[in-house]
């Protein structure tokens, strides 16, 4: 869905955000969902146990019991730090949490500095446009109540460049990219060891950029050629500025390099998609996308409920436990009867 080749960028991004939003909501809504009558009938563990008891899965009752208790044992180990692996994981998580939190704090400092060093050139009810000498790439962000579009002073030599950067950043605000970016950044310290989170974040960011380029250029009177050239020019300028920074601290702070995901040039992908849109315009299926997002939310929540351990043991779990205990007794009896 997120890494496919389909060109409905906005729809794909919306599906990804729906999935992430539902996963974030799972801890809050699961206790309520588990009280519903449907929850008991969709438990995936019970289905698997039932299949083992019926002989459709080639596992013994003891193996299945061990498999089911694995999660509890693992959580106990993590909570008590009783194994070395658990201790290493807890330490890695702690270090990652602190490093990522410091990184975010530094970015908050950078944002505040850029806004405070700048001059507000336009202020509407929700958005402030700031021109700042402290940045080299236009960006948008948000505070508690307002959005900010921050443009570098160096861009103001080029009037069309200002219009393009402003339009692009306003489109990011309109399509919810800024809110998503802030939310993803804020939850990132907790997901620091989860490669899936970084993969999703990277893909969602890319889809957001592709959707933003398309929406901006879809408006009448905007020149795709000039837009693409300015993107390249700003990227080159930003790269030159980053290289001018001292090596210590500079390298990890200037990029968004995600290991194994950043080998392709995002800028090149964006330019190629702009060219493809000119040759073969793609339309976003907004209504279908909204419907699929609702369906996605339902599937994610259903999946979460089905994987949650029920409070009471079901008939299948009691049967499995009984069979496993009988197997164990049988083994003991066999051992007792053996003549050494």
């Amino acid at each position, binding site marked *: 869905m997120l890494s496919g080749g389909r060109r409905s960028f906005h729809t794909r991004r919306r599906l990804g955000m729906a999935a992430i939003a539902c996963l974030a909501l799972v801890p809050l809504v699961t206790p309520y969902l588990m009280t519903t009558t449907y929850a008991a009938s969709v438990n995936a563990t019970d289905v698997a146990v039932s299949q083992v008891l019926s002989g459709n899965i080639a596992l013994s009752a003891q193996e299945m019991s061990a498999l089911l208790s694995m999660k509890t044992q693992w959580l106990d180990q993590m909570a008590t730090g009783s194994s070395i692996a658990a201790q290493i994981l807890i330490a890695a998580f702690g270090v990652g949490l602190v490093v990522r939190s410091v990184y*975010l704090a*530094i*970015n*908050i*400092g*950078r*944002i505040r500095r850029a806004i405070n060093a700048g001059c507000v050139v336009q202020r509407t009810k929700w958005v402030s446009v700031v021109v700042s000498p*402290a*940045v*080299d*790439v*236009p*960006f*948008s*962000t948000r505070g508690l109540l307002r959005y900010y579009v921050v443009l570098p002073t160096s861009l103001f030599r080029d009037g069309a460049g200002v219009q393009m950067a402003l339009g*692009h*950043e306003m489109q990011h605000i309109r399509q919810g*990219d800024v809110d998503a*970016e*802030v939310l993803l*950044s804020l939850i*990132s310290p907790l997901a620091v060891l989860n490669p899936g989170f970084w993969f999703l974040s990277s893909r969602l*960011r890319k889809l*957001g950029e592709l959707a933003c380029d398309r929406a901006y250029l879809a408006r009448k*009177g905007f*020149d*795709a*050629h*000039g837009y*693409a*050239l300015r*993107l*390249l020019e*700003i*990227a*080159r300028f*930003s*790269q030159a*500025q*980053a290289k001018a*920074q*001292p090596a*210590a*601290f*500079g390298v990890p*702070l*200037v*990029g*968004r*390099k995600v290991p194994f995901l*950043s080998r392709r*040039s*995002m*800028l*090149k992908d964006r*330019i*190629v998609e*702009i*060219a493809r849109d*000119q040759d073969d315009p793609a339309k976003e299926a907004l209504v279908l996308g909204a419907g699929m997002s609702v369906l996605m939310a339902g599937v994610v929540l259903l999946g979460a409920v089905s994987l949650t351990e029920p409070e009471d043991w079901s008939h299948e779990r009691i049967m499995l436990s009984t069979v496993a205990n009988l197997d164990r007794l049988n083994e003991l009896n066999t051992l007792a009867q053996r003549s050494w």
Partner: protein
Amino acid sequence: MARRRSEMLTDVELEFMIALWEIGTGSVRDIMGALHEDQQRAYTSVATVMKILDDKGFVSSDRKDRALVYSPAVQKRDYEGRSLKNLSKTLFGGTPTALVARLVDNEDLTDEMIQEIKEIIDTRIRKDDG
């Protein structure tokens, strides 16, 4: 006369400046003597780095007899202040990367990649003045 200007010292230059700050003033041999044992370098290397420091404006030199005698032109306390300022600039300067939507992401674009992208723009994207 400065050959090139740089606000900050490299690691090796900093080693020599620390030695010079310790002795106050001295020739290349004096500076070599003030370096720690594990920092010892050839006479010509030390002389070259001191010449660079002179060009950068971190030291001043006077010729006495046939040897150059160097003195710090920047005091240690001033340089420490400059280092902290530079660190702050590095940490809090530049465009933020988290919590924002940027117009373009930072990428290591090689000359070949830039040329390739430029060609795509020129050959595949039409100018649309409408």
